[in-house]
């Protein structure tokens, strides 16, 4: 029985053979022009291959050679379609498969985003304490060089740090006394190194490995030793919680997730940056609140005024922020002050530094 014509490539040579095709019960029988049987393909093994619109192209599943049978006769193609389950010329099963794949890929994406939001910060937090102190020191030293190079805009070099000149020595001693007092009550994983630097920005921050920078601009705004102690204690909170190590690990994890797996399409760059910034700033706001709580408790433990941190925060940031809050990595100063008040810790009335020491500390950058 001859059901129709087709073109056959046997997969070993490129010869184009015009063949006659017989649709038997279980298989397709392919004969050459002389009526000799070339091969027989079981319907169950047949696979549909990509082809132009008016061609039905078939191959065999799981073969290393690529024999092909091409059918251009729509009647024959329809008959074959009816018999072989894997063949579907209408493309309906292809569309179903595609829909299923699309659904899975969307689900996979959602799960990866979930990993970025919940798992990466959690894993980073768990891993951070296990990073050896030597590596953290090394990271801190490298960051220290970079940070100094960025902040030291006037190229002061060693003079960038206050308290190195003879006139500043008493200020340095006072700072050391304050830091020693706080350190005694704190339980820190690494020794810390607090420096005041010549920059007018009212700010302070902690680097990995226990480097803490207090800017001259912030010292100028401090009205009591307890306020400064509050700020330093807040930064010591970051050191105690290993926050810089955590955020570094978290950044690496997010870069891997967003930078390599996700976001590799035109316009994806914006999605990466926005996603990373949103996750990091949300996380960072929580970290800042934790450091505030640590700082307040530490100052209370030394017997100083724990509420002073809230006071200096509101003084520095007295403007109401009008931009978008979801992008900001610090909570609002007034919110921070309120949270500190709510902790309701009282001063034990201990004088952290006497009046002479405080005056000396305020002039730690006098040599400039």
């Amino acid at each position, binding site marked *: 029985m001859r059901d129709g*014509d*087709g*073109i056959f*490539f*046997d*997969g*070993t*040579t*490129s*010869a*184009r*053979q*015009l063949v006659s095709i017989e649709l038997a019960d279980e298989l397709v029988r392919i004969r050459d*022009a002389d009526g000799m049987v070339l091969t027989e393909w079981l319907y169950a093994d047949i696979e549909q*291959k*990509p*082809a*132009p619109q*008016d*061609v039905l*192209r078939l191959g065999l599943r799981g073969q*290393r*050679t*690529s*024999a*092909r049978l*091409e059918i*251009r*006769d729509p009647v024959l193609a329809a008959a074959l379609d009816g018999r072989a389950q894997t063949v579907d010329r209408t493309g309906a099963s292809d569309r179903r498969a*595609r829909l299923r*794949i*699309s659904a899975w*890929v*969307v689900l*996979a*994406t959602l799960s*990866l*985003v979930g990993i970025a939001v919940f798992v990466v910060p959690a894993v980073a937090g768990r891993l951070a304490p296990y990073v050896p102190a030597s590596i953290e020191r090394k*990271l801190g*030293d*490298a960051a220290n*060089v970079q940070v100094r190079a960025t902040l030291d805009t006037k190229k002061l070099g060693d003079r960038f740090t206050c308290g190195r000149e003879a006139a500043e020595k008493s200020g340095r001693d006072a700072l050391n006394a304050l830091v020693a007092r706080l350190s005694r009550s704190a339980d820190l994983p690494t020794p810390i190194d607090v420096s005041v630097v010549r920059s007018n920005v009212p700010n302070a921050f902690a680097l990995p490995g226990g480097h803490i920078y207090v800017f001259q601009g912030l010292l100028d705004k401090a009205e009591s030793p307890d306020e400064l102690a509050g700020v330093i204690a807040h930064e010591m909170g970051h050191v105690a919680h290993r926050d810089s190590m955590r955020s570094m690990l978290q950044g*690496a994890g997010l870069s*891997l997730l967003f930078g*390599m*797996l*996700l*976001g*590799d*399409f*035109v*316009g*994806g760059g*914006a*999605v990466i940056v*926005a996603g990373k910034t949103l996750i990091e700033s949300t996380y960072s706001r929580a970290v800042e609140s934790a450091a505030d709580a640590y700082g307040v408790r530490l100052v209370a433990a030394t017997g100083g005024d724990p509420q002073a941190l809230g006071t200096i925060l509101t003084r520095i940031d007295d403007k109401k922020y009008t931009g*978008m*809050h*979801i*992008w900001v990595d610090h909570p609002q100063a007034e919110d921070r002050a309120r949270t500190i008040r709510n902790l309701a810790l009282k001063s034990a009335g201990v004088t952290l530094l006497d009046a002479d020491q405080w005056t000396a500390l305020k002039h730690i950058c006098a040599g400039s």
Partner: protein
Amino acid sequence: MSVPSVTGVVPRAARDNVSFLGADRDYWRLMLRGALLLMFTLGIYRFWLVTDMRRFQWSNTEVGGDSLEYTGTAFEILIGFLIAIALLVPIYSGFFFAALDLGPLGRIAGVLSFVLLAFLGQFAVYRARRYRLTRTVYRGIRFRQTGSAWRYAVCAMFWWVMIIVTLGLAFPVAQARLERFKMNNTYYGDLAGEFHGEARTLFWRGAPLWLLVVGPMIAGIAYGALRIDWGAAIAAATQDGDDVFARIEGASPGFGAGVVIAILGCIWAILAAMAVYPAFQALVLRWWLAGLRFGPVTTVSRVRTGQIYGIYMRLLGYSVLFSISAGIAGSLATGIYALLAPIMPPLLGEILVTAGLLVSYVVAALAYSTIYQVIVKLGFWRVGANSLELSGTAALDRVKAVGHPSSSIGEGLANALGVGGW
């Protein structure tokens, strides 16, 4: 449509012809659906999209009456990509820690990583080409590629440096050498590929364009440099004090004019490069297609420069059309937001504005990229294929199958490193 039954003779015209049958409309549908899914999957869908695109392009390209077939699958590329990531992460971490080193290692880490990644990129380009060739089936037989990807990467790096150093003059030699490397290692079954394009031919055809672009720039810079009294200018520049430019101009009159002329030369170079770029692409395409050989099968390409300009005109038209409609949609959305803003809680407003800006940016970027893919990329494929005329095609009937599909790690690496290449 039925096949002529008994006779096995295919008409000559069809035998020597290459043609592209795909309809733009089908490709638009495929690409727009792909863009949408790319957005919702943050790019993960790219493996499926690129597979669909290749299937469309290959299937619709007919050589001597039979169409090509792309047999690669999205899963293969995805697996290759994941393996490539597993290989790259240690390398990236290594560079991260090297950069922390305070010694000389830390200082050269940046340069070192750039060179290594560029090298790996070229390696991946070659391996990805192998993947695509072994996934190309024509008349039941695969293409394949031999040759060391490391050697290719070394050659490619060398020639790219030469192109930059010579301001593009080395481009024809580089192109001819690299293409020869690729094609001499390319086979269709047991039929060996070759590349016969001559660097000299490309050089003399491209020279007028190069002169038009780079000539005035060099002249401008040289003229500017000659007008400046360098000794006096440098002496003035190294003095202390404010307003360096006034001082230099005083010490070396004509300094300002010299700088302006040099800058004008550079602006000319940019504008001229944009204007003649399609003509340049047309002549490279013609030269490349005409240089391809498979055994006795030779090619001639009749790409007209006007066709390439036509493609870019269409690109411009579609982009303007999209920009206008995007502008209208954007103003409408802004208007609606302005009306609703007073009655919305501030946090909701923040989220809406953020999401709105982000989504519009992504939509716009994807739309321009889709337009580019459909109009330019597919346009080049179509024009290139339709322009081909083959001879010696009798040899295509007697090719024997050799070789197996290659691994997809190269394709995955190319994807992870963001290098395309063909």
